[in-house]
């Protein structure tokens, strides 16, 4: 276990990713803060990879059961999160390309 060098690597990644996140998200239009949250929610469900490994490796009953529930929970976030984000984003229309009743 070369855990200390792994730890340093992980910390580097965490801090740098945090900075990227901060800079990128700062630029998100407040118009889209709700879809932003549902999108980050879906992306965060990437935790499913850890759960998949637990289920797939089946090292103990407990880990398989916990893993199974975790995969279910995360997958529902992935599917639901992307679906609703897409629905919301599609609703945002500009007034420039013909809004039906408000025709000039």
């Amino acid at each position, binding site marked *: 276990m070369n855990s200390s060098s792994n730890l340093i690597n992980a910390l580097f990644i965490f801090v740098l990713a945090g900075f990227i996140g901060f800079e990128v998200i700062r630029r998100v239009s407040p*118009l889209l803060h709700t879809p932003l949250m549902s*999108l980050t929610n879906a992306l965060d469900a990437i*935790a*499913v*990879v850890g759960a*998949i490994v637990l289920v797939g490796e*089946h090292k103990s009953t407990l880990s398989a059961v916990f893993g199974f529930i975790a995969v279910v929970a995360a997958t529902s976030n992935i599917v*639901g999160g992307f679906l609703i984000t897409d629905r919301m984003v599609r609703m945002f229309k*500009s007034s420039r390309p013909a809004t039906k009743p408000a025709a000039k």
Partner: protein
Amino acid sequence: MTTELAGGQVVIELLYLIASVLFILSLKWMSSPTSARHGIWAGEAGMLLAICGTLLRHGIVDYRLIGIALVVGSIIGVPLGEVAMTAVPQRTALSHAFGALCVTLVGSAEFYLRTPNISHFMMAVLSLEVILGGLTVTGSLMAAGKLQEILPQRPLTYKGQNLVNFLLLAAAFVIGVTLVQHPESRTLFPFMILIALAFGVLLIIPIGGADMPTVISLLNGYAGLSAAAMGFVLDSKLLIIAGALDGSSGLILSIIMSKAMNRSFTNVLFGAFGQVQALHAAGEEARPVRSATPEEAAAILSAASRVIIVPGYGMAVAQAQHKVRELYDALTKRGVDVRFAIHPVAGRMPGHMNVLLAEADIPYDRLIEMDEINGDFPQTDVALVIGANDVTNPAARSDHSSPIYGMPILDVDKARTVMVIKRSMNPGFAGIDNPLYYLNNTLMLFGDAKAFVGGIVRELGGGHS
């Protein structure tokens, strides 16, 4: 043999790298509504690559069970993706709970698989992961319950609440520290999780409906941080990156929300503890107000050239957004310039008003943020407030004794005429009296928002078309 294995590992890591890049692009493209759909596609592609990469991993033997779990999760996910836009805040809270549940369960399983061979550092991160995860699970469920109105929305406070919460959190951390020193204490671990779960409940109990935008953002941040901690435990760079992105998103939104409510960030970071919603004695109820009928309101609106509509959560409660769209159409047809002023904390989560109005087909370039539109109120003929209260309260600017003093507000009182649609003179969520209603240029339009706006639209329609 070993090189072959390493080769497979490299492919998986490269897939994870591509997924990480796609995730960052996904958030980058959310910057504007025109590119937002690309952002979703990038996110979906990244997710797909990451899951496929994981399935390729050496050591995975049970594909059947994974398949079943993925299918069940998808079946649950689809209806969660199709809720009504008014229910998006509780859906979001619920999905924070699911995400945190996943993280907590994986963390617990890892503990029992690895104990007692856990390094100090690993145990510390693992404790952090399950404490953050656990409190986010129950905290989010509580928030969802309050938003869905299954639980009472009213904040519940009691004496010594802060102390109890603090002691609970301290107890969880003491157990965490003990576990770091003795990672073989299998029996101690569940207690840490139980305390975290209890803490999550108690954290949300004192929080009322109007604070929900901050709380949801905060829980979003906690969910992200716990996922990043899980990345440390599993040594997964992808998870660390995704968790850091989600965590920073939640924190940024919390900061924006706390600024918009004039709270310090530490106040928010600790879950807006004991935000006892100040019930200010509204003893001056007898002051005279001017009121108007839909006909009068329609006449004033049609004579205006610039109108700003200020929507609040009351509009969503009354389901009035589609009627508001009709009003927007009717006025626009008459050549009136109609815009919408969006306060950051209007609604029950960040950006909630924008989504509701976009659903009602109001073009997004008509939805203007507070800072951008505030300077325009003095040149505005009519400011029409629909279901918003505290975010328009001029006491926040001038009255030092007001509980919301210092909170940035929409300066509707500077418009030539202010019209406020409201059920009655009852003060709003925070229980604070609003001096706006007694101003000389204010007209109160008493009634249900949907019915009243409908009445105005009828009048406008009868006049010209």
